[in-house]
């Protein structure tokens, strides 16, 4: 038994400072992204979330070229992207997909250029991989308070607006009949989503950032029919996938003779996917009406 435990959790794992930082940042990010993501799925804005995350590639690469921490790039571009989307009317159903797609395409084109320039400048592809796919073990400890602040802001928006946001998301008609400011609530939510996605990009990269936003939420919605429980369940799934992903990535160092660890983001996304598949089979068996 002791042997099995040592194989799974290698000695030194919990004492490793990079692991501790990755776990702390990862936990905050997972909670924020999963909770905000429940509303993303309810509102059917997964594509917008995907676009905001992928735009992180542009932001992160810009930040890298200029020499500042990628987190600022992720945050700035996500907020800018959300603002543009709001201005071109993403809250209207018609034309929403097209507008998002155009912004996304433009962003990716720019990212391709910036990443290429970065590669030439630095003669390494390390930054590219970090921005696109994340590298939680190489985070600097100064990042943790920033993540806590912006994560707290995103989560705060969702918790403070909880009831009106739920009503607006379920039926804008009912909400406007009750004189709720539907557009303002939608815009604030878009901001929360932008922050959550930017933080997610920091740990698992711009490309995969939506997985943490939407995956645990989709899993939770299969398992519960109450919005509050959905948020708690999503957060639990998110943290579970993040911590287990960190553990597996740490262990994977020993799996091949060349001692190359597999990326954390791969494990996190794979675990989220497994959780979703499991929840679907649970729900189809258990689901009455």
């Amino acid at each position, binding site marked *: 038994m002791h042997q099995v435990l040592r194989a799974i959790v290698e000695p030194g794992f919990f004492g490793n400072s990079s692991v501790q930082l990755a776990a702390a940042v990862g936990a905050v990010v997972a909670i924020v992204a999963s909770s905000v993501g429940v509303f993303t799925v309810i509102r059917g804005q997964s594509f917008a979330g995907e676009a905001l995350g992928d735009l992180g590639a542009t932001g992160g690469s810009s930040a890298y070229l200029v020499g500042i921490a990628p987190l600022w790039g992720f945050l700035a571009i996500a907020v800018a992207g959300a603002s543009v989307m709001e201005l071109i009317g993403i809250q209207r159903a018609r034309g929403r997909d097209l507008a998002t797609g155009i912004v996304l395409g433009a962003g990716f084109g720019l990212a391709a250029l910036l990443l290429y320039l970065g590669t030439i400048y630095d003669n390494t592809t390390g930054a590219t991989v970090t921005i696109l796919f994340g590298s939680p073990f190489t985070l600097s400890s100064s990042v943790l308070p920033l993540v806590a602040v912006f994560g707290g802001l995103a989560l705060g928006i969702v918790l403070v607006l*909880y009831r009106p946001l739920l009503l607006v998301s*379920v039926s804008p008609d009912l909400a*406007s009949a*009750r004189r709720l400011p539907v557009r303002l609530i939608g815009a604030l939510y878009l901001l929360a989503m932008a922050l959550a996605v930017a933080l997610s990009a920091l740990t698992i990269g711009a490309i995969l950032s939506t997985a943490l936003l939407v995956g645990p939420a989709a899993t*939770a*919605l299969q398992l519960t029919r109450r919005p509050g429980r959905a948020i708690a369940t999503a957060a639990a799934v998110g943290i579970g996938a993040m911590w287990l992903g960190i553990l597996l990535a740490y262990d994977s160092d020993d799996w091949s003779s060349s001692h190359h660890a597999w990326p954390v983001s791969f494990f996190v996304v794979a675990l989220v996917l497994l959780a979703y598949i499991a929840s679907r089979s649970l729900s189809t068996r258990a689901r009455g009406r």
Partner: protein
Amino acid sequence: MSAELLATEPAATAPEALSVDGVTVRLGGRTVLDDVSFSVRAGEFTGLIGSNGAGKTTLFRVILGLQPPLSGHVRVGDGRRGGADVGYVPQKFLLDPDMPLRGRDLIALGLDGHRLGVPLPSRARRARVDEMLDAVDACAFADDRVGQLSGGEQQRILIAHALISRPRLLLLDEPLANLDLRAAQEAVRLLSRIASEQRIAVLISAHEMNPLLPVMDRIVYLAAGRAASGSVDEVVRSEVLTELYGHHVDVLRVHGRVIVVGGRGHDEHVVPELTGGAPGSVEIVK
């Protein structure tokens, strides 16, 4: 011209729940509502009848405060409680079957959906929700996902959602449009019961008045942007509707059903949207 007819008012002890006074609305260069005036008292079941495009939805939007009128004003109750005085049940309500919201959750949002923050579990709130579920006879499916309910069941949840804040006025936008005959009859009975038991004014819009005839206390007939209101016997008459439409209209009564036939002199034809039948046909009723 507003044909506000002098009605034999019921013992006018019931307070006025809604007062619409000289409302005119112009949209896109067209006069959609022209000097519309009527009032509804607590406990009355009023039908807003008019064909599609007659201005029913616009009138509802004015009452809800979503559409400012060019002239005239609307007062709900004593005007003090603002938005909380009107309960609204929209016509279309399509929900993803996976939406994590039970019937009782949606009803609870009717009570405090406008308040910030996360709701703490409260026995008082749960009791209110149960009371509403009972009133609309929805206890059997209160814990099911709203997106998985049938149209009629969803409508009852929406009615409970609108009623829980104790509004003075309940507005329903074409509630019978998507229901089969039996569900429509049940809905009409339920709404009539709510009007009298809860002493609130119920105003429902429809393009076909016959299903409402058994329970309608008053009718507001909307045509060409103008309205005539009063009891059914007073309003649904050839003279009144002719004046309203601006061309000759006949009203036939056959075994308790009303058929409105529009025509111009010799060129008699049935106005399809008034009877709900196909153009060129006359509804045969037993």
